[in-house]
């Protein structure tokens, strides 16, 4: 495949958020490379996901566990189910490295998660590190920095 255009990178990020909002989690998981990670740091400006605590640092196995759990009949915290809603700024292309097959986008966003009578609003920046695998764009790393990452939080059950 020829290198993805800027518009394709932007479209990918917007589509990813839409899949979450529409609970199309199987399609969403397919967007991750086999060795892809989803990372939500706990500390402001955190650089290490391994020896410093994070809110999430999940490989495909852990993400798959979350997606399967959302479907389970005995997942009581999802009865009734949560809903969510993303509002994204237009993703900005921070890096295009065609030789290394790596593309980085940066996307400020607001995210709402709601269940029963409770609705929580989060502000965050999503940093996508993307690559092409067999001609298709995939996520190597999706990093989500909450503006209030170190605050006392309520449960976040879906995905920013």
């Amino acid at each position, binding site marked *: 495949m020829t290198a993805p255009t800027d518009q394709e990178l932007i479209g990918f990020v917007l589509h990813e958020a839409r899949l979450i909002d529409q609970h199309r989690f199987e399609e969403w998981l397919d967007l991750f490379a086999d060795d892809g990670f989803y990372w939500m740091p706990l500390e402001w400006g955190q650089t290490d996901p391994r020896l410093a605590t994070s*809110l*999430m640092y999940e490989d495909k*196995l852990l993400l*798959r566990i979350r997606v399967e*759990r959302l479907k389970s009949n005995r997942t009581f*915290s999802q009865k009734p189910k949560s809903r969510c809603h993303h509002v994204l700024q237009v993703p900005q292309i921070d890096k295009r490295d065609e030789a290394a097959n790596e593309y980085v986008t940066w996307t400020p966003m607001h995210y709402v998660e709601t269940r029963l009578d409770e609705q929580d609003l989060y502000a965050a920046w999503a940093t996508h590190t993307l690559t092409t695998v067999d001609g298709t764009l995939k996520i190597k790393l999706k990093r989500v920095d909450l503006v209030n990452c170190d605050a006392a939080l309520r449960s976040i059950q879906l995905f920013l």
Partner: protein
Amino acid sequence: MGQYHGNAAAVRDLVRETKVHRDVYVDQEIFDLEMEHLFANTWIYVGHDSQVPSPGDYFGTSIGKQPVLLVRHTDGEVYVLYNRCPHKGTRITIDTCGNAGKFFRCPYHAWSFKTDGSLLAIPLRKGYEHTGLEESEAYKGIPRVRHVKNYRGFVFAKMSDVGPDFDDYFGESLSSIDNMVDRSPAGRLEVAGAPLRHTFNCNWKMLVENLTDTCHPMVAHESSAGTAVEVWKKMFPGANKKPPAVEIFAPFMSSYEAFEKMGIRVWRNGHGHTGVHHSIHSDYSSVPGYFEKMVAAYGEARAKAILDESRHNTSYFPNFTIKGPIQAIRLFKPIAPNRTLAESWTFRLVEAPEQLLERTITYSRLINAPTSVVAHDDLEMYERAQEGLLVDANPWVNIQRLYDPAEMEQETAVVNGTSEWQMRNQFRAWSKFMTMSL
């Protein structure tokens, strides 16, 4: 003033041999009395001395609802100060931690204080001449919590003069802290990074009780731990060695029988632990090089004895719990009758391989984060209970499992791991420390 203020008999009546009245969880007056009496008469965990290594270092937290500062003074001692200026009440610091230098300076009127709280200077002091300032509360400086004990790095404080001294209060239960610290070849722990902070719309005691509730994991966590095992088997058919995350999730699905055999130990004053003989932390894979370091530090027999002890959750009454084998602690901070902040802190074992810290961090992230599926399972149950307890038709919560009237005479015991004795033990201590100054 309601029905409980100044009425020790009414408070005692809430705790029966095998049940407790819902007011202990939902009533505002009881909550206020807990803050005034229970959290004053007991030893409350404040922080770890590795958070304030150098003179002038401070760490801000709370005891009950009162803001306090853990401070390292110039003499090397650790003090706990109430975080208010003696002048107008302004909190001296708002940030969680920092270094005050040689003194605290109130940002409102620049009164300054040594790091032991004593008054250092007041601007334009002559305005207080002949006013009798020396006789005022303000002149005494930042008030200090009177009773403080640094036990192997863990700093506890007791606000009131009522209640037992430190050793009497904790007794043999300190063996769980000992075991966690001994797991470092250097015999030292260090706080590793920021805490996970998760807000629950339920009473703080529900979180404490849950940690010795061994009949809920296979039910409430089937959705998370059960799914984890299933997904792993499907994605990696025939694999033997579980990846670290599955190694952490899987034991939550242990059978009733397994939890029965793990055992529970109860101690005086409401302390106790699960996992006497074996625990959900027993079967983690070994970390290369760690045992050798432990043997070098302690000798083989002692090293084995330390590592064979695999206590699950130790509850230090009232609101502090630790997991020795994975060096994680949780503190349940009361905010309101129906609101609690759970803080989860992780520790580094000084001079141990970093894979142990990685495991601790993985555990806390997977089990105790606001984003953790296991925490989601638990929160759902506590919050449903907080709502269900508003039903007037039955105001009682049952804690009867494996009750034996003989236990009323017994302070320490090792029993079947599914016993609710530790919950009863906590409530008997609750009744005692609530009413001793009421």
